[in-house]
C-alpha cells in the first residue's frame, strides 16, 4: 500500500507543479509588488514651487542649493527653481507663480567666513492656504538653522582671532572644516538615526503577505489534491476493509501522502522566494511541517465527507478564501474595517498565519 502511494505521489507531482506555476506566479507578484499598490497614496506628494536667486561669486552657493534640494523632506515636497536676477524673485512670488523666494546677496559666503554674516532675504506672501503656511514655516526654520550655522562659524572666527592665527591659516582651517561639514551633512544619519515608519510598515507587510500567501497557495492546492484521494470512494474503502485496512489507516496514509506532496510544493516555493531575494528562515523547512499536516488532515477530512473531488475542490476554494480573508491573510487587517480586526482573533487561521510568520521571519 505504501509503495503504491509513493508511486502515486511521483505520478501526481507534475500536476502539483503545474498548479504551482499557475497560481504561484500570481501570488509571487502580489507579494513582491503588493506594497506598491497599498502604499501608492503615501508616496505621491503635491509639490510647491520656490524660486531662488544665487549670486555667481562662490561655488558654495551652488553646493548649498544642491544640498538643500536633495534633503528628503524637501525634494519630495518643494521644487526649487533658480532665477537669474533678484528682481525675478520678487516678480514671481508677487504674481503667485511661486509660493516663496530666497535671495542670497553678493558676498554672502565670504561674509560667513569672515564673520560678517550677511543676511539672506526670504520673500513670501501671507499664507492663504495651509500649504503656504507650512512652506513659509519650513523656510523660516531653515533660515533659523542657517543663522545658527553662521553663529557657530562666527564663534570659530572669534576663537581663531583670539589664538592669533593669521587670516590665511584661518581660511585653510575653515575650508577643511566646511568640507567635513559637507560630508557630515550628506551623511547626516550619523547624527540622526532616521527611521522611516512607512518603510518598516512595507517590510512588515511583505513578510506577512509572504507568509499568508504561501499558506494560501498550500491551501488552494486542494484543487489538485482533491483528485488524489481514493478514501472518498466507497468501493475503494470496501476493498480496503476486506483486505484488513481500517478506514483510519487509509485516512492516515492519504493525509501523510498529501503532507509529503505539500512539503515538496513548499520546497519549490522556498526556492522561488529565495530567487526573488525573500529569504525565509532555514528552520521554516522543519517548523512548517505541523501546518502542512493540519492542512492535509483537514482537506482529507473534507474529501471523506463530500466524496466528490470537484465538490471538495470548490468547497475548499470558497472556504479557503473566506477563512484567509477574515484572518487578514489576503488583505492586511490594517486596511480592513474594524469588524474584521475584531473578528480575526476568533479565526484559527489568524493564529496559523502568525505562527507561519514567526517561523519564516522570526
Amino acid at each position, binding site marked *: *500500500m505504501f509503495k503504491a502511494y509513493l508511486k502515486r505521489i511521483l505520478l501526481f507531482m507534475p500536476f502539483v507543479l503545474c498548479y504551482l506555476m499557475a497560481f504561484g506566479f500570481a501570488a509571487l507578484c502580489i507579494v513582491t509588488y503588493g506594497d506598491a499598490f497599498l502604499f501608492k497614496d503615501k508616496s505621491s506628494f503635491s509639490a510647491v514651487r520656490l524660486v531662488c536667486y544665487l549670486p555667481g561669486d562662490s561655488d558654495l552657493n551652488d553646493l548649498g542649493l544642491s544640498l538643500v534640494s536633495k534633503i528628503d523632506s524637501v525634494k519630495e515636497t518643494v521644487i526649487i527653481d533658480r532665477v537669474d536676477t533678484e528682481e525675478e524673485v520678487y516678480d514671481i512670488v508677487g504674481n503667485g507663480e511661486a509660493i516663496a523666494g530666497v535671495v542670497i546677496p553678493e558676498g554672502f559666503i565670504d561674509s560667513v567666513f569672515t564673520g560678517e554674516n550677511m543676511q539672506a532675504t526670504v520673500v513670501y506672501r501671507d499664507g492663504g492656504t495651509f500649504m503656504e503656511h507650512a512652506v513659509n514655516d519650513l523656510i523660516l526654520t531653515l533660515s533659523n538653522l542657517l543663522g545658527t550655522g553662521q553663529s557657530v562659524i562666527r564663534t570659530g572666527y572669534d576663537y581663531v582671532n583670539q589664538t592669533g592665527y593669521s587670516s590665511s591659516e584661518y581660511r585653510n582651517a575653515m575650508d577643511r572644516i566646511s568640507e567635513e561639514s559637507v560630508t557630515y551633512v550628506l551623511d547626516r544619519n550619523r547624527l540622526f538615526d532616521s527611521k522611516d515608519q512607512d518603510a518598516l510598515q512595507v517590510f512588515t507587510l511583505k513578510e506577512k503577505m509572504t507568509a499568508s500567501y504561501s499558506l494560501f497557495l498550500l491551501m488552494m492546492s486542494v484543487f489538485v489534491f482533491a483528485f488524489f484521494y481514493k478514501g472518498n470512494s*466507497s468501493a475503494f474503502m470496501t476493498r480496503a*476493509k476486506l483486505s484488513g485496512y481500517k478506514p483510519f489507516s487509509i485516512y492516515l496514509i492519504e493525509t501523510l501522502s498529501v503532507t509529503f506532496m505539500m512539503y515538496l510544493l513548499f520546497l519549490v516555493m522556498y526556492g522561488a522566494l529565495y530567487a526573488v531575494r525573500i529569504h525565509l528562515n532555514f528552520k521554516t523547512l522543519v517548523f512548517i511541517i505541523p501546518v502542512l499536516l493540519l492542512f492535509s488532515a483537514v482537506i482529507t477530512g473534507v474529501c471523506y465527507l463530500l466524496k466528490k473531488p470537484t465538490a471538495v475542490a470548490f468547497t475548499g476554494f470558497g472556504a479557503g478564501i473566506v477563512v484567509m480573508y477574515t484572518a487578514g491573510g489576503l488583505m492586511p487587517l490594517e486596511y480592513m474595517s474594524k469588524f474584521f480586526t475584531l473578528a480575526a482573533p476568533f479565526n484559527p487561521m489568524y493564529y496559523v498565519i502568525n505562527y507561519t510568520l514567526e517561523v519564516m521571519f522570526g
Partner: protein
Amino acid sequence: MVEIKDLTLNYKKSVLTGVNITADKGECIGLLGLNGSGKSTLLTAIAGIKKPAAGTIKVGGKVGFVTQENALIEELTGIDNLMMWSPLSKKDILKALTDSEAAVLKTRDFIDLKVRRMSGGMKKRLAITSVILEHPDVLLLDEPLAALDIPAKKDIISFIDTFKSGGGTVFVASHSEDIFAHCDRVYYLHDGKCEQLPEGQSIAGALNV
C-alpha cells in the same frame, strides 16, 4: 459456506426483510431485482460492511467482494494495482496470473497497461483478479457483466465456473440472463422481500417486463 437467516436490512429509505439464503461450497447464488431493490446492500451485508437490522449472516471463510464501481487506481498500472493489495511479490503475482484460477481472466495480457487506458472489460477482469489473489472462499460479484462486450462476459462467466469447481461460493447480483444460467439458485428481490425464483421462470417474467 454462507447462511443467511431472517435477515432484515435497512437501506436508503427502504427495508429488505425475510432474507433466508443458504449457499454451500461450490454453489453460485444469483440475486435478481430492479435497480434499488437491495441487491448491492445484501452483498455489502454478506461482506460484513453493513450491519443487519435483524437476523444473522454466517460466512465460513474469507470473503472477496468485487463492487460495481471498481476500486482500482487509475493512474497506476495493472500490476501496481495488484501489488497494492496483495502481500505477494511481483514475480509471484505474475506467476499466479498464469497458473491459478485467475488465468481464465487473461489479466496477464494487459497487466502493464495503466488502468485509465484499459477498457471496461479489462478493468472488471483486473478488479476480480485483485480480489482472487487474496484467495477468498466466498466471492461476491456486484453487476460483473454490466457494460461489457461479449468476450469479456465469456471470460468472467468462465471464471465463475472455475471458481465454483474449485470449491468456492459465489454470490452474483446482476440483470444479465447469461450469468444466471450458471447459478445454482436465483433469488428475486422485490418490494422489500427476497424470494427464490422458481426453476424455469424467465428473468423477464420475474421482472415483469
